[in-house]
């Protein structure tokens, strides 16, 4: 069973309906370590050693956050800056993360359609994850396409709950999957178009429950 480290970054988590729905759906799952970063480092102090030990102890790293200005909340950037140290995560002797899987779970306020050519945001959603893909590559990790719950401003409670279930099932599938490597190879950085959001649904959940 693959061990999952889930890092939640939401500065106003208490007021977030969508992220609460996702997080509460997977919190307490066996083999999933959930960490609420804004609660653990409210003053942006990050215990780098501890974070690194946790990373070493897991196979799949999932960063869950709302997409702010096409990027991560600031604490998650700080977390990455500090924890992915030179000589540890990358660089000549930096191999600690090699072979791990790296994935994002994102909520967006606007609907999925806005992330298309001609839409409000004009580019496919996954293209905004270029930093995360490049980070994975530099650290020798295998990047997986994101779980996305788009348009959360318009979703009803029932829809949000369904998204939570989809999220949980995806995590279970990731835990059980014995061929993650082949899966990841499909999504290596190449010349072609960026992968679709929720591409893993097709691969792992056979297309069912595509939100």
């Amino acid at each position, binding site marked *: 069973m693959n061990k999952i480290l889930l890092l939640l970054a*939401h*500065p*106003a*988590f*208490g*007021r*977030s309906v969508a992220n609460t729905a996702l997080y509460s759906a997977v919190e307490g799952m066996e083999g999933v370590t959930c960490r609420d970063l*804004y*609660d*653990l480092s*409210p*003053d942006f102090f990050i215990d780098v050693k501890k974070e690194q030990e946790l990373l070493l102890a897991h196979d799949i790293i999932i960063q869950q956050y*709302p997409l*702010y200005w096409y990027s991560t*909340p600031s604490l998650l950037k700080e977390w990455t800056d500090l924890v992915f140290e030179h000589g540890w995560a990358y660089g000549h002797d930096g191999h600690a993360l090699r072979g791990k899987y790296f994935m994002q779970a994102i909520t967006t*306020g*606007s609907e999925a359609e806005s992330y298309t050519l001609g839409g409000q945001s004009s580019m496919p959603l996954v293209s905004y994850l270029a930093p995360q893909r490049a980070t994975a590559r530099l650290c020798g990790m295998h990047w997986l396409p994101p779980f996305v719950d788009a348009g959360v*401003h*318009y979703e009803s409670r029932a829809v949000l709950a369904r998204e939570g279930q989809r999220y949980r099932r995806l995590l279970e599938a990731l835990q059980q999957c014995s061929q993650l490597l082949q899966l990841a190879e499909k999504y290596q950085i190449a010349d072609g178009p960026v992968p679709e959001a929720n591409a893993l649904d097709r691969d792992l959940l056979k297309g069912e429950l595509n939100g």
Partner: protein
Amino acid sequence: MDNFLLQLLLFCTAAIIAVPLARKCGLSSVLGYLLAGVVIGPFGLSLMGDVESVMHFTEFGVVMMLFLIGLELKPSLLWRMRTPILGMGGMQVVGTALVIGLIGWFFVPWQTALVVGLTVSLSSTAIVLQTMREKGTMETSSGRAVFSILLFQDLAVIPILSILPLLALSSVPGRFSSGEAALLDISSLPTMWRVVATLGAIGSISVIGKYLARPIFRIIAATRVREIFIAVALAMVVGISLLMMVVGLSPALGAFLAGLVLADNEYRYELESDIDPFKGLLLGVFFISVGASLDFLFIGHHLLLIAALVVGLLLVKGLILYGVGFLFHTPREVRSYLAAALCQGGEFAFVLFEFSRSNGVLTDKVITPCISAVIISMFLAPLFFMLQERLTGRSGNEEQQREADAIKERGARVILSGFGKVGADVGRFLLSTGIRPVIVEPDAGHVATLRRFGFEVYYGDVGRLELLEAAGAAEAELLVVTDRDPEKARALIALAREHFPQLKIAASASDRSAVYDMMDIGVSALRRETFGGAVELGREVLVRLGFRRYEAYCLTRLFRHQAEAFLPKLYHAHRGQSTAEYQLLYRRHTSRIAALLQARGENNVGQNEKAWAASRGED
């Protein structure tokens, strides 16, 4: 009693008039004292009583000075100086004695010439060190060389005293005694026991200084009666001097040793500032009495002889000092500094000439002109310092700047006043960041506790100028004022500003009105000591009430910034407007902050987290 008070008034008045005058003319204070002595002496206004006994008593200032020098010197530094002390010092004393002895041989028997040579080879520790301290050249390489030689001269007094009787021409029933061993005379003991007693005395100074001094100071300091602490300091120096006299050693040397042993004691600064005024006064009166003892009548009658003696003394000593400097490969300016600083005769000459007279080694015919020459040479000493500065165009101070890197390493950048509830945490924080402040704490009991916890804390009150200076205020960048009542804090800041304008100030204030008081005198690096802790506690309360940690953090941050931003307005209202108006403004400020922190927009979203909880409408 009346007479004593009258004399005291006389000395003080003479000093008060002469010293500022001398300083005004760019002369050293030593010269001022000497001139004051001439004015009030038998050939001036003839106001002074028994010059000789005054001089004898005030010689004790030299002992105190060496004690202070010992305090400032680390034993390791002294050990590194062993070559200049023995080599340069030894060569200077022996060389001077031999050359003057040879020259003198033309006029008097060789024994007499040699005794005079030995006697005048010693320079004036009092004048030279006082002048160097005033000019700030003690820490320079020139200053160290001069100090090494002076130290050797102090050591040399002991063997010289024992050689002199052997050079007596006529045997006088005088026995070995400096006439000072008043309490106990160990000279009647067999040699072996004398050695044992001497070593025992030195040993006991080291043991007491190392192991007993600290607990004693601690107990005394805990009484918080300042004069008792001063009394202990004085008693210690006097006691050591007496002990040294009993075993026949130089008291100055003993005091120097004691100072050395106490150099790493935490009460060092306090000792220094307690002894320093006594030393200054005693030396001042000593210089006055030297000035007063110039016998103008005798000099007038033997003008040529005296002039020849003075010129000969200065020339021979100066040349030999320059030569010693040359042989030890010192830089040119150090050689000329040595020659200028040490070419005079010294106060030891009075003792040695007196001793020679009583032992029949020299006659008055020799002694009287020689003493006059020594006094005149001492008179000229401060002038030679000036002359050397003029000629080399380089004062010792410039040299000190060149060496300042090394000193700066030792000198702390921060002086932390108070290591109490606020100071302790400021200090621990600074130490953790690698900044080592000089920590001075006025509560002795607290100091003792802190030392047990491994903090290097000095006992004392930097509200006193001497101690502020001793803590290194002249070189430090910043003074941190903590744990003081507002009035004392303001006095300290004013003192520091006046004397050390380069010193930046950071202060904690106990309450709001203390904050305003500090703002009155323009302190800007200012924190109310309870504010930070209180706000942090408030944050804990919010978290315990179920607020998310990050939200609680943002609220305290907002509160803190609002309070800081509004402080100038409150301050101006407090100072410029009526109490009622101030209270009104304060209330407005309070409700403004409350409104800001509780602001809830759409969906009950707080002002501080509007950005994080964008809703449909704001998308």
